Structure formats: structure tokens, C-alpha cells
């Protein structure tokens, strides 16, 4: 799970940087009178990074901790 989320984070951030490097015209496209597509894209990287963090906490609190405490109990018995 950690590794999958790390991979998503890589795609999100380095994808954004590479997109700017490779296709500048696309990022510079206007979506309003002056606003460029790059502005919501940059904001989306920040929000996306936070959502990945929240997804991890959600998974760890619900699944990982339950599994870990079950394993700890088993260790104590033996």
C-alpha cells in the first residue's frame, strides 16, 4: 500500500513537471479570459498530494492497525 501510494505520488508530481517541460503550450492554454490551465493543474497537485496522504491514514487506521494488533496478540500467546 505504501509503495502503491508512493508510485501514485511520483506520477502526480513528476508527471506535472514533465508535462510542463514537454508540452508547454498545453499548460499555457487559456481556460478563462486570462487564467491558464497550469493554475488549476498546480493546485490539483497540492490537493492530490493531500488526498493521497488522507487515503493512507484511512487505510492504516482501519486495516493496518487491526492486523497489527491481531499479530501482536498472537505473538504474546506463544
Amino acid at each position: 500500500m505504501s509503495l502503491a501510494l508512493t508510485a501514485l505520488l511520483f506520477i502526480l508530481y513528476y508527471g506535472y513537471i514533465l508535462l510542463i517541460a514537454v508540452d508547454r503550450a498545453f499548460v499555457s492554454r487559456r481556460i478563462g479570459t486570462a487564467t491558464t490551465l497550469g493554475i488549476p493543474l498546480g493546485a490539483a497537485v497540492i490537493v492530490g498530494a493531500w488526498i493521497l496522504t488522507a487515503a493512507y491514514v484511512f487505510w492504516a487506521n482501519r486495516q493496518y492497525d487491526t492486523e497489527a494488533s491481531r499479530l501482536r496478540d498472537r505473538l504474546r500467546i506463544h
Partner: protein
Amino acid sequence: MQTTLGTPTLSGILFFLGIVAVTLAVTYWAARHTRSTKEFYAAGRSISPLQNGLALAGDYMSAASFLGIAGLVALRGYDGMIYATGWLVGWPALMFLIAEPLRNLGQFTFADVVAFRLRQVPVRIASAIGGILTLLFYVLAQMVGAGNLITLMFGLRYEWAVLCVGGVMLAYVLFGGMIATTWVQIIKAILLLFGVTLLTIFVLSRFQFSPSALYEAVAARYGQSALEPGGLVSDPVDAISLGLALMFGLLGLPHILMRFYTVPDARAARTSVLYATGFIGYFYLIIPIVGFGASALVGRELIRRIDAGGNMAAPLIAELLGGTPFLGFIAAVAFATILAVVAGLTLAGATTLSHDIFTHAIRKGNATEREQIRIARVATLAFGVVAVVLGIVFKGQNVAFMVGLAFAVAASANFPALLLSIVWRRFNTAGAVAAIASGALLSVVLIILSPTIWVDLLHNPAPVFPLRNPAIVSMPVGFLCGVLASLATREPDAESRFDDEKLRTYLGVGAE
């Protein structure tokens, strides 16, 4: 517009004294609860996740990110926004890879984790060198920045400004240890988030609360190019290298890592990263609006005339929209920002010197609580004095690259040793020493040979190393040297203790 920047104003001085008075009162209270090493280094492990989330944000968001990024956006438009995203993306990585194992395995420093199943003395010394180098580069940039900023804002002499920051910060750390440092960072984070939120609301109120009206005003004044990517990502390899340093550097910053020992357990560490990422993400989302607002309303010409680097963009827009009292408030917030970061760095430096070098490398773990606390205070004083002296010696030098260097060393030396020690059974003492030594050395050498120093400071015609950011080379080399040195030597003890370590890493069995 007329500006009172550079002259002391009544409101500025009042806010400034108010912050110093409140934080010193907190320190006085904290000093009475700071007796054991656990209290001095880790606030008794009694900090709640929300408090630690705020303190992490306060430890991380430096004046460079507040004034620097607002200025970068004001002067260079969209490029500043690309840069801002890089400062956030390390936080999820810190959560996924390091935060919980670090909390479960360590006691006070990241070296506790690296040295967990390895030979104490060499690993402690190597980790301490990596840690202290990172902290010194970082604190040097902070001190020079502090001197310049306070001179610009209050008109105080540079040397006095550096001494003043050093003196107040030492009072926090010497007497109040981690408890005082944590509360100074919490107060600073709240003030900074509040101040920047107010600034954003003031800016947007001039544009009928429509960001697109703000962007139109920027485009009308400085052309559509202000909203398009400019020179920052012109070289994608360099941009990725900067991104790597910012992302993985965070995972090797000693002053950030040691904050995880202030919470009761791994679950609390996890929750505190979520809070911190929320606060820091919010900050980097809205700070470009302040920068664009300064561009549209104050104008790039005036911002550049007052400070060529653009650092005064946020104070200037504050004065324009909220008058002298609001400028005084924002200036005091910038001052609190510097104090909180420098206090965190000094505490981390002192902990490294006393816990890793004195207690474990010199005394082999045999030192009484009293001795350790005494040495920790001496180390605090030593690190603080070195920070002030460095700040004064480097007066007038361009040291902005020092923060980049700190992140490069952290990403190339501290992070590889930390990660490999957690995940790889075959990792051993030789590997840890090799990873830290090669990563740190290569980062420093490559920065010296890069355009930043070789061409801009030493005035050579062409750089030996073409990139401004070395991490894309130095980080893989740090990992590679760690792996090769481990494979070349055998350390059966380290391998056999890996199973115990795993129980503690992933299940928290035996964690302090």
C-alpha cells in the same frame, strides 16, 4: 505608493515585542517541565497529533517559503507556483516511507534508527556528520536571511538583527527544550496561517473575490506570459533534480524527523503528518494569490526596487491593503517564522551532538540523565553561537543556494541510510557509513562545480557540472555506495537482528 518599510513603526514594534513576550512566557512555563532527557529532547512524548501537526508546519514553513515564494510569484509569475508545489510533495512521501518506522524504532534522533542493529560508534558518527552538515547549511541560510529581512523591515543593523534572533532563540531552547520549541512553532504556525489568510482575503476583495479577475489584472499589466511556465522548467533534468531534492530532502531533515518522537506512538505520528500536510498544503495553495496580488496592485518595479530578490512583496501588499498596522503584523509574523525555524534547527543540532556523539559514541550509552541534560545545554549554546557567527561572517553573501544544499545532503546522505536500514536485511555498518559519506561529499562537490557557485560566485566561464541541483546524481550514488559497501562486507549480527527490528518497525513491539 509610499512605504514605511525599513523604518521602525509603533505597530511593528508592538507586535514584535508582543510575540517575544508571549513566547518567553511560554518558555518560562516550559522550563519548569523540562527536567529529563525525554522532556528536553521529545517534550515527554506528550504532544497531541494536532499540536504536532501545527508544530511540524511551523518547523518547516520558513521565511524563504513565506516571503520568498510570494516574491517569486510576484516577479516571475507561474514559475513561483511550480516551485511552491515542490515544497509540499515531500510530506506524503515522508508518511508512506519513514514516519511510522522512525517513531517505532528511535528514541530522539534519526541516527537511533540507522544504528538500531548496526555498530554504534561508526554509524552514530557518520549520521551525526550528515545531520550536522544539513543543519549548518540550513541555519546559515536562515541566519543571513533573518539579518537581511529584519534590517529591511525594521531598519535595525544587520549584526544586531542576527544577535537578536540568536539570543531569543537560545532562550527558548536552553531553558524550555522541546516543550518551548514546540509551542513557539505552534504559535508561529497559527500566526502565519492567519496572516496569510487575511492577506489573501484582502487581495481577493479587490477583485470581487474572483481569482480569474486577479489573473486578468496580472495579465493586463505584465502580459499573458506571467501566467505561463517560464524559465524554471526550461531544463527538465534540472527541474526533476530539484524536485527529488525537495521531496526526499524532507525525509532526511533532522529537525523535522525528531518531531515524530514528541508524540505518544506511531498512530499519533501518522495523524500528525496528515494535519501538517493539510496546513502546509493550504499555505502553498493560497500564497501564490498573495504573490499575484502584489504583482497586480503593488507592481514589480517597486517590489524589485526595495529588494531585488522580491522578498518584500508580501509586506508591501500588506501595507497597501491594510496600512501600517497590518504591515507591522506581517513583519512580526515573518520574525516569528524565523525564530521558530532556527529554534528547531538548534535543538536538532544540540540533540545530535549530545545524544549521538556524547552519549552513544563517546560514553557508549553510559551517561546519567543529569550529565546528558548538561551536555545538551552546552551543545545548544555551542550550536547557537556557531549559527550567529556564521550569520555575521556571511553578511552580504548570496546564500540562497545553502537551503538547496541542505536538502541535497539530506536527500543523498541521511535519507538513503535511513531507508536502507529500515527495509534491507543485508544493510550493515559499512553500508551506512558509505551511503552517508558518499552522498554528503558528492552533494557538496557537485554544488561547488555547478553553475550556482562555479559560474555565478567564482566567475568561471563554464560549469564543470551542468545542473544547479545535484540530487538526481548524488542521491542514486548515495544508495549505490550503501548497497555496494554492504554487499562487500558481512555483519551476521546486523542480519540476525533484522527480524527483531521488523517486529518493532511494523508492529511497534518494544517501541518507546
